[in-house]
């Protein structure tokens, strides 16, 4: 059977050459075993993690079981509502020795978890000055994305829909504008709900997709990890293949001549 992807379709993020275009989160899984199984089946090379106070009752620590030779950890700033909190969180991540690339996420509202783009811009500036490779979670707003890439972010990560909503791509048109103007990788982050959403996102010409809930909260997370891995590749290949034009009317696929009479 043909291989899943053509070996030459790699991409570069913050100086790293990557084969997988799927970045996955490590939250909401039943346990470490399920997390590991899903990471493997997703084919991901980068996985997100959150920074929290140590839980003295926790039996094992993520850092003790995650395969850091295989996965690059991407610390996020989930739960931060101001630029200061986000910066403080990522400085601690750097002190932990895991901050080569960071996911900047400054939330503006607890109900929608939509980003506060103004605070995100402020935090990105500080972090870039401190030498971080910043991947900001941002609205599907071409103007803000352009400011972030011009400022020196290593990618822009517009959302498809609210975090954990699974609503799919709410504004493909704006994602298209962001791709048209992009000078850094465009990663759709949050809102993807199923494999066709992931494929559709890739068909917009983006470089990758970041997701967590869609895999972790599927009835069978391991199987959904497979589905997402393939959905991403399918969408990417379809984008590269160049889809057929959409026609308002029909167009026969069998010859219209040579019919018996």
């Amino acid at each position, binding site marked *: 059977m043909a291989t899943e992807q053509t070996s030459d379709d790699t991409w570069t993020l913050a100086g790293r050459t990557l084969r997988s275009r799927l970045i996955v989160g490590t939250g*909401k899984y039943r346990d470490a075993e399920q997390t590991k199984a899903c990471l493997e089946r997703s084919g991901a090379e980068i996985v997100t993690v959150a920074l929290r106070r*140590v839980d003295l009752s926790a039996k094992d620590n*993520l850092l003790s079981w995650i395969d850091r030779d295989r996965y690059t950890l991407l610390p996020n700033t989930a739960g931060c509502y101001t630029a200061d909190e986000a910066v403080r969180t990522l400085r*601690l991540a750097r002190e932990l020795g895991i901050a080569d690339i960071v996911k900047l996420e400054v939330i503006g509202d607890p109900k929608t978890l939509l980003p506060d783009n103004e605070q995100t811009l402020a935090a990105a500036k500080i972090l870039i000055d401190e030498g971080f490779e910043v991947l900001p979670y941002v609205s599907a707003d071409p103007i803000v994305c352009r400011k972030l890439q011009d400022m020196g972010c290593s990618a822009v990560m517009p959302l498809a829909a609210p975090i954990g909503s699974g609503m799919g791509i709410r504004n493909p048109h704006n994602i298209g504008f962001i791709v048209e103007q992009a000078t850094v990788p465009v990663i759709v982050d949050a809102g993807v709900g199923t494999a066709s959403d992931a494929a559709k996102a890739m068909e917009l010409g983006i470089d990758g997709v970041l997701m967590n809930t869609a895999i972790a909260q599927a009835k069978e997370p391991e199987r959904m990890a497979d589905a997402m891995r393939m959905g991403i590749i399918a969408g990417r290949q379809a984008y590269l293949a160049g889809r057929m034009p959409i026609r308002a009317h029909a167009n026969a696929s069998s010859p219209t001549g040579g019919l018996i009479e």
Partner: protein
Amino acid sequence: MSGSMLQIVVNGEARAVESGTTVAGLVTALGLQREHVAVERNREIVPRAEHEARSLADGDVLEIVTFVGGG
């Protein structure tokens, strides 16, 4: 060396530790692997290289953090 105790706050909870306790000592005492945590003392990061040397003072407020699963 005195047996006097220091009152400190670790991750929001009050604790008492013997005076002279270092950051490294506290981390170990809490059963944590030092390479798995980062420490803030009174809002300032204590570089891991200084955990051995840095002693705690009465009233210190510490944040000891690590990574957990997240998206």
